């Protein structure tokens, strides 16, 4: 008899388990989304989008990162396994260019050309975005924000004391570094944190852009130059090398925000970093235009990248997924998200004066009017494979300062990872 009860309980448990899982999947109107905006400021920004989405779809139930451990850095690993096992979410946070191309090559994404046409999206954005989001005539995602990365943040007091004007070209930057070093030998003219090695590639983008101009920059980052013999590329690397003596010497121990804090403590004078540092500076109590300010190098180009929402193939709730992407094209959604996130809208039809600070006003105006390029690593101009090797080469270069060795390694890495071939899509 005891045995009977034991078996009965087990059977009931099994049935309950099966039932609970099926009832979970049968629930209608769920909208599953993966993102890693979980920090303060970011979370509120995505919540603003959810609020608008909920108004458009009152019956939808928003499910964020439903896999345990799916937030933050681990999201990509969880996402990769979900996509590979054919259980995609309805949308997820992504970048553009080569960062997105891996998903497309694997056949995980579906085109959203119809949504772009419906929203007249192409006519409302800088042509650069089209270039880095269109693969063989098809688009697979909608960008939600634009982060500018050719910003040089500086400690206003130090620059005023030394008497240098905020640099707007590479020459002026090098000159400013020299003057600061002379006047204040204890201060590092240029802050940098390479604990996350990727930030070494931001300086690389800067010298490429300032040496050969935007066209050369795009060619170099897509592997369309002869790295070994190109004289402009050599000059760019020599210019990178010339900056190294002025960089904060212990950069290998600093993360991007710790390096940014060197401006507050007065240990460094200038910092080459994207506009997400603005939120950090405001958070640690720095006063805009009193303690710090920013200048663009070069001033006539907008460089940066976007976060995008693609449409996965086989999304479980395609109607909601498509409506989410359509919503992201609207000025209201773009404005609500970016005001909180600290970035600017992709679309040009949100007026620049909605931003409370002068830096984003300028970024928005520049994005609407200037030539724009995408940054190398996060913007997906280079491939993840080449990028991963590049940042290792550059952090090595920051230490040994050997231009020839760096050029040779970059050429080899480009060849080994088939950079030119992998970036053909950009020029088609």
């Amino acid at each position, binding site marked *: 008899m005891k045995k009977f009860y034991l078996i009965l309980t087990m059977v009931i448990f099994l049935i309950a388990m099966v039932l609970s899982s099926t009832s979970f999947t049968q629930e209608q109107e769920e909208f599953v989304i993966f993102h890693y905006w979980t920090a303060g400021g970011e979370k509120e920004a995505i919540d603003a989008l959810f609020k608008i989405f909920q108004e458009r779809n009152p019956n939808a139930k928003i499910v964020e990162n439903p896999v345990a451990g799916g937030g933050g850095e681990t999201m990509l690993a969880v996402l990769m396994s979900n996509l590979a096992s054919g259980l995609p979410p309805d949308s997820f946070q992504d970048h553009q260019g080569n960062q997105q191309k891996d998903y497309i090559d*694997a056949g995980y994404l579906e085109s959203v050309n119809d949504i772009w046409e419906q929203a007249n999206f192409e006519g409302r954005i800088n042509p650069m975005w089209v270039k880095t989001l269109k693969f063989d005539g098809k688009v697979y995602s909608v960008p939600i924000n634009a982060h500018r990365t050719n910003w040089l943040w500086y400690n206003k007091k130090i620059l005023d004391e030394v008497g240098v004007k905020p640099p707007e070209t590479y020459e002026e930057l090098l000159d400013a570094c020299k003057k600061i070093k002379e006047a204040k030998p204890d201060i590092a003219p240029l802050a940098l944190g390479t604990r996350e090695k990727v930030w070494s590639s931001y300086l690389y983008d800067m010298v490429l852009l300032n040496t050969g101009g935007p066209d050369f920059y795009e060619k170099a980052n897509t592997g369309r130059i002869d790295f070994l013999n190109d004289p402009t590329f050599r000059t760019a690397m020599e210019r990178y090398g010339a900056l190294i003596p002025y960089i904060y010497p212990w950069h290998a121990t600093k993360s991007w925000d710790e390096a940014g804090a060197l401006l507050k403590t007065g240990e460094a004078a200038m910092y080459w970093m994207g506009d997400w540092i603005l939120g950090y500076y405001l958070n640690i109590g720095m006063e805009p235009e009193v303690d710090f300010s920013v200048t663009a190098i070069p001033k006539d180009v907008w460089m940066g990248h976007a976060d995008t929402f693609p449409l996965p193939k086989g999304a479980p709730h395609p109607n909601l997924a498509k409506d989410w992407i359509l919503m992201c094209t609207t000025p209201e959604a773009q404005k609500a998200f970016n005001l909180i996130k600290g970035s600017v809208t992709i679309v040009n039809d949100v007026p620049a004066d909605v931003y409370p600070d002068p830096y984003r006003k300028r970024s928005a105006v520049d994005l609407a009017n200037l030539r724009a390029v995408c940054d190398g690593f996060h913007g997906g101009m280079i491939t993840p494979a080449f990028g991963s090797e590049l940042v290792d080469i550059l952090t090595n270069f920051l*230490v040994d300062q050997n231009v020839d060795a760096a050029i040779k390694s970059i050429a080899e890495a480009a060849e080994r990872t088939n950079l030119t071939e992998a970036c053909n899509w950009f020029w088609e």
Partner: protein
Amino acid sequence: MRYYKSHGIVFLIPILVIVILFYGMIIWDVFAAFTRWQGLLPTWQFSGFYNFIRLFQMDRFWVNLRNNILWLAIFIVPTVIVGFSIAYLITNFKRGETILWQIFLFPMALSFIITGVLWAWMYDPSTGVINSILKIVGVNTSRIGWIALPKTAIYCMIFSAFWQYLGFALVIYLGAIKSLPLEMVEAARVDGASHFTISFRIIFPNVGHATLISTTMLAITTVKAFDLVWIMTRGGPGVSTEILPYLMYRLTFDSRDIGMGAATSIVMLIFSSIIVIPYSLWALKKWVRI
């Protein structure tokens, strides 16, 4: 309740599944190492030793391998010798023995992650405690970079692992020394042997099994010191502190070059087999009479 052999097999099934899965994955990994699998989608296209040749052509690989060997050489020997010496000293204390070995064993309770964070803070050239003390003493620290300099970074990192695993070696030796017959040491003492002679001429040769256990365990630790590298330097400055497991991770998940990552893991498998297999054979011979 009566015991049947079949019951035993039923209870073994879960562990058997795990073991089969484990070896299955190793086989899968070997297959992946011989394919040109790049990107997110598997391509089971056989490419011979292509990945291995590319791997051996990378300067970075040799830096990694050198670092792994460096870890073996300068982590194990000091840990074992210092661990043994302290164990010997502690056995000579009549009082406070338990407190002392607990103090030394304490770091073992920490994970590599915590050790890494702690030591990275202490090594920080501008705000770290080591340079701060040096500054107070009057040393010019502007050129002392600890983990920020490629020449010293790996040694700093190995030292923090030494700090953590010293207690491990100590406890193993402590147990071994205590199980030795006292007469041996006393006879030597009567003959007028010094502490040095007693410890290194008499006790050390008699605790060979402890040396074997600690060196092997420490050798395995060096192969999986991934966490320490990740937390303290992420392989930097440059690639100067990378070790093979770190390279494997970078190739697989950052470069999305699964084939190369699998090839690296095969090299690691061979590398650790060279350490572990001779030990296992020896241990089996000594302790299990077949």
